[in-house]
């Protein structure tokens, strides 16, 4: 059997499509070996890293991971904490002791800290095999969100919105003067001048649409220079 790549780097492949033949290639995330071939297991973009073949997924739900910074919405007030919707198949629990730095006395009304439909930036502290998720809202950069607007984007496109070491989101922040927090779960909080918020929203939506294309930074800075239109 000839050992070769059947597709180019950065090509889109569909489940069941053979990416490479021969045992010298290794299956990475999103691929599997069938006989001596490497076959795609998802709809995604091929990324060849030496002999390892990976797939970058372009769609799908958020998969909670420890130490991720996410934006959540309170859906329930419990006896000892709060339940958050973190835009994924499983809800997250915020315990009283991880919520605020001040002391919460026994029998206190928990709604004065977080009430239903409040938004907060949280850090995922634990995920069990049964996907019971714990979060904390106490720590650097973690807080309750007040004002601004929340938009939702595909969680798989979040790395593109943040950019290399935050370059893309910093660019939008500088050009629009908005405060922006991008949660790993695909929720984005934007707060600033109303018309600048709109510019930021449009820019982020464009990045989401074109996440799989290269030369994005140039197009985004061009777009921001035109006041948010392409």
């Amino acid at each position, binding site marked *: 059997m000839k050992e070769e790549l059947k597709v180019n780097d950065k090509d889109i492949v*569909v*489940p069941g499509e053979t990416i490479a033949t021969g045992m010298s290639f290794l299956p990475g995330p999103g691929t599997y070996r069938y006989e001596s071939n490497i076959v795609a297991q998802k709809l995604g973009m091929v990324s060849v890293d030496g002999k390892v073949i990976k797939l970058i997924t372009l769609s799908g739900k958020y998969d909670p991971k420890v130490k991720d910074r996410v934006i959540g919405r309170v859906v329930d007030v419990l006896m000892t904490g709060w339940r958050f919707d973190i835009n994924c198949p499983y809800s997250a629990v915020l315990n009283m002791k991880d919520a605020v730095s001040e002391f919460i006395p026994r029998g206190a009304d928990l709604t004065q800290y977080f009430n239903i439909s409040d938004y907060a930036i949280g850090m995922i502290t634990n995920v069990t095999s049964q996907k019971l998720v714990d979060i904390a809202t106490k720590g650097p950069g973690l807080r309750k969100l007040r004002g601004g607007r929340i938009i939702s984007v595909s969680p798989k496109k979040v790395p593109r919105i943040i950019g290399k070491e935050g370059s893309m989101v910093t660019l939008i922040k500088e050009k629009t003067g908005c405060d922006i927090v991008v949660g790993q779960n695909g929720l984005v909080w934007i707060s600033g001048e109303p018309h600048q918020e709109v510019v930021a929203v449009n820019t982020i939506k464009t990045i989401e649409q074109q996440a799989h294309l290269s030369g994005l930074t140039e197009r985004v800075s061009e777009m921001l220079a035109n006041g948010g239109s392409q």
Partner: protein
Amino acid sequence: MTYTKRFDGRKFDETRPMIAKVGIIPRADGSAMFQAGDTIAYAAVYGPRDLHPKFMQNPSTGILRVHYNMMPFSGHGDRVRPGGGRRSKEICMVMQNALTPVLDLKDYPNAVVDVFIEFPQTDAGTRCAGLNAASMALADAGLTMKDLVCAIAAGRVEDKVVIDLNYLEDSHEDGCDIPMAILPSTGEVTLLQMDGEISAEMLSDALKLANNTAKQIYDVQKVALKEKFTQVKK
């Protein structure tokens, strides 16, 4: 009796014209449309998401739930009774069984993936068109699948083996309809049903024909899934 020419003028091994589109229902997590001749299927995927009722939850894996529905005006002039019936319940079950083997939902314990398949117009071969649409919609939703599912009906009309039967052939008094779902890369079969009678030789011919046609369907699905990303390019 001999069947010399097909009712709609196709060759005996020729499918109806196929059209596939992906991402047509923006609010869904994944969606697709598949059309074979006058049969049109729309599939929308939601999830993985929280599963209720709770007794259906499986702590070791997520589950797949398929909903099949023919719209009231979708038939041949007679109104199709809305809502689920004995027929649609069976089709939901066989489609679920046809799609489950390609899906890996181990990462989603207690969750569910819902697939809704609707037919605005039908001309036989709905479970096959539905499966083709559903497997594209599941891939569009970013789920882990070892392959797509390609479904096609083979069969017999009088003395001829035919592929992709339309309603006239399907309801012909001397015939046989065999809907199949095939995984194109391995040739595994995940759905095989038969309505009517067929000889052993003709059955083996029909299965071979369906296997070859599955690859054509896979190409149509592949192009549709990739098109979603090439269209954005400017």
